[in-house]
């Protein structure tokens, strides 16, 4: 057992850090400094910088465009990017449909989609949830009717984050309604420019344009756009879940958020001294930072397992649970550190110091982290069932 990074790993970290500092365009660096919301254009601008460097898909096999890094290098790379506050890349292509296609796609599909995911030429979004089925995906009702050479898709998807900017959407659709719920679902790729696709964006509670409803009205989709086999979409969805889980620890992001708490508290004054010197407030930060230390170790332990070739299993649900909770608590502390400045909205320069300008917005939309990607309640159900083996209702 060795908890320190090797000289090679440390050198890699330095290389990444230096490169990020020089490669992040100045107008993005400016926004990163205050954790401002990045527009999709800005996200894709950064995507293309990483793509040009060959660092856009650390978790992809080398054969299809990955850089061939070790698990530890990937951890370091992610932590460095998060710590620097670079735009968070859209995960739908790189971390969701991409890896799925690598695993299950046909040669033609791989050739058609993967290069444009890497280059950023095509932006993806996800069509899973529906108004009536959030956590209960198996009850979805968007229908893909077999019309011989193509499907005709009708229905509505919700929480299609960033659909307004997407070129493609991957969807779970019902292709067979005569069989048991999970059995009649297929995994379908749909071109957003197809006739009959409409997108209705809405604002998050942090006033960022993220969520959308996406409507399908007699949308024609070629049959070759099914990933895996028809009616086996559930298998695809489960495989994709495994890929998604590795993304979610947010260790660097949490660390960055706690650093911002400290910075705000350093500049706010209480009784003539920096708030950071107030023992009560300082202890709040310390207790959270200790939680982050514990979380970081849990993440490293999962990585160690991955290094030995174990696929991240249900125990990685812990990473989602803790990462999302710690991030929320860090934002709560940023707000508390600001005192009455926490009253500020995020778009009026000069009202509060730059470090505090975007906090209220981020604080608000960060409430979503314990909800999306499988709510924390769902993660607990997974652990209860798959790790603890506790009896399931209806099966007692």
């Amino acid at each position: 057992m060795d908890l320190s990074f090797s000289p090679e790993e440390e050198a890699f970290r330095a290389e990444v850090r230096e490169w990020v500092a020089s490669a992040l365009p100045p107008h993005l660096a400016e926004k990163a400094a205050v954790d401002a919301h990045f527009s999709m254009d800005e996200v894709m601008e950064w995507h293309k910088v990483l793509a040009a460097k060959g660092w856009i898909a650390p978790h992809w096999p080398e054969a299809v465009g990955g850089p061939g890094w070790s698990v530890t290098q990937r951890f370091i790379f992610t932590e460095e990017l998060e710590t620097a506050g670079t735009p968070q890349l859209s995960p739908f292509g790189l971390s969701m449909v991409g890896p799925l296609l690598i695993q299950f796609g046909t040669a033609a599909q791989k050739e058609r989609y993967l290069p444009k995911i890497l280059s950023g030429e095509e932006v993806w979004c996800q069509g899973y949830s529906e108004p009536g089925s959030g956590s209960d995906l198996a009850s979805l009702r968007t229908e893909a009717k077999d019309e011989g050479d193509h499907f005709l898709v009708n229905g509505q998807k919700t929480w299609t984050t960033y659909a307004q900017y997407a070129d493609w959407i991957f969807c779970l659709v019902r292709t067979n309604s005569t069989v048991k719920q999970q059995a009649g679902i297929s995994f379908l790729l749909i071109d957003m420019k197809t006739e009959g696709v409409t997108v209705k964006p809405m604002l998050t509670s942090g006033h960022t344009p993220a969520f959308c409803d996406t409507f399908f009205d007699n949308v024609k989709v070629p049959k070759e756009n099914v990933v895996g086999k028809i009616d086996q979409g559930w298998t695809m969805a489960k495989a994709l879940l495994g890929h998604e889980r590795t993304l979610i620890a947010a260790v660097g992001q949490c660390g960055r958020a706690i650093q911002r708490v400290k910075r705000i508290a350093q500049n706010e004054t209480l009784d003539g001294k920096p708030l950071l010197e107030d023992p009560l407030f300082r202890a709040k930060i310390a207790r959270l930072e200790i939680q982050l230390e514990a979380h970081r170790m849990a993440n490293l332990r999962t990585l160690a397992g991955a290094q030995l070739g174990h696929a991240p299993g249900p125990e990685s649900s812990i990473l989602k649970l803790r990462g999302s909770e710690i991030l929320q608590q860090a934002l709560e502390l940023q707000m508390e550190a600001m005192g009455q400045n926490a009253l500020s909205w995020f778009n009026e320069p000069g009202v509060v110091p730059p470090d505090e300008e975007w906090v209220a917005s981020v604080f608000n939309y960060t409430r979503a982290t314990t909800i999306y990607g499988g709510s924390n309640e769902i993660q607990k159900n997974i652990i209860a069932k798959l790790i603890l083996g506790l009896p399931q209702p209806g099966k007692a």
Partner: protein
Amino acid sequence: MDLSLTEDQKMIRETAATFVKKESPVERSRKLRDTDLGHDAAVYRQMGELGWLGLPLPEHVGGFGGSMVDAAILLEEFGKTLVPEPYLASVVLGGMAVAHGASTAQQQELLGPMVEGDSVLALGWAERGSRYDASAIEARAEKRGDAWSITGEKVWVLGGHAADHLVVSAKTGAGVSLFHVAAGAKGLDVTTVKTMDGRKAATLRLEGAEGALLGDEGAAGPVLDHVLDKAAAAACAEGVGVANAVLWMTVEYLKTRKQFGVPIGIFQALQHRAVDMFVQTELLKGTSILANAKCESTDPVERAQAVSAAKAQLSTGGFFVVAQGTQLHGGVGVTDEHDISLYFKRMRALMALFGDEEHHVARYMTLPSFTEGI
């Protein structure tokens, strides 16, 4: 000891409940977010006609001689639909500053019209560096003949953008004093700022603005302490209304939202979470009553003990309720278009006003009462 409402108080609650339900549903607050004023002047005037603006103010200014407990009944109802009119700003902050700090003549001059709904008052007590300490200010006032010339900056002045009369604190040779500055005064710049909860406040910049001394020079310290305790108690009362609305909105959602073929409220983990929200809401009710009753006291220790307990409780229990209410709503809870996001933001704003958890725990534990009789 008697915790029941008087007949008058029952009537106030009933009238207010009917008002918010019929005339001020939460959609009204949502619409007013996008206006410059942020509230409806006609509704504010109506509040005057109903006698609400004068409720906790003395009879010699046209008030009803009621207490903060009476005002708390109103504020709790206001919280339930996020009524945006500047009651807290005009009656509790501006109004109480004048009631506690000004001469009888000044009280009649400033409070008389406000009680009728003809004017809005606001109090500028905080500055960029003051955090929650009303004495840590840099604004200064100098005597110029009969009047005073005031220079400084006041931030987060609730209702300041809409106020006809501003009460501001500034230092003179004798200490912190209160001054009345008319809204249009020369040397006064009022900038409207949006607040996180969709409301408005003002930044006041005074450069030799002319003002009139309220009450005695240098006597504002204890006045502001008392006013801010009342304001904190008022925030707790409004917070009770917010928590209450979120609790029952969430329970309703749990009963109607279906997943896996059943209402999600059937799941025990969610049930117990809702129960925890209920428990916290009940605890907030009790501490709000305590704070609003005791904030009338002239004993600063007794007052601080009750108010700090209640405001700390709001910051923990109140936040728990809105955070878990959001969580239990799932995705819709974090959209701007769902009402719960407005309640969430209002609760967070109430937490930031007049002292956060750290401030009130720190104050509570340094009171002499804390170590009494060990």
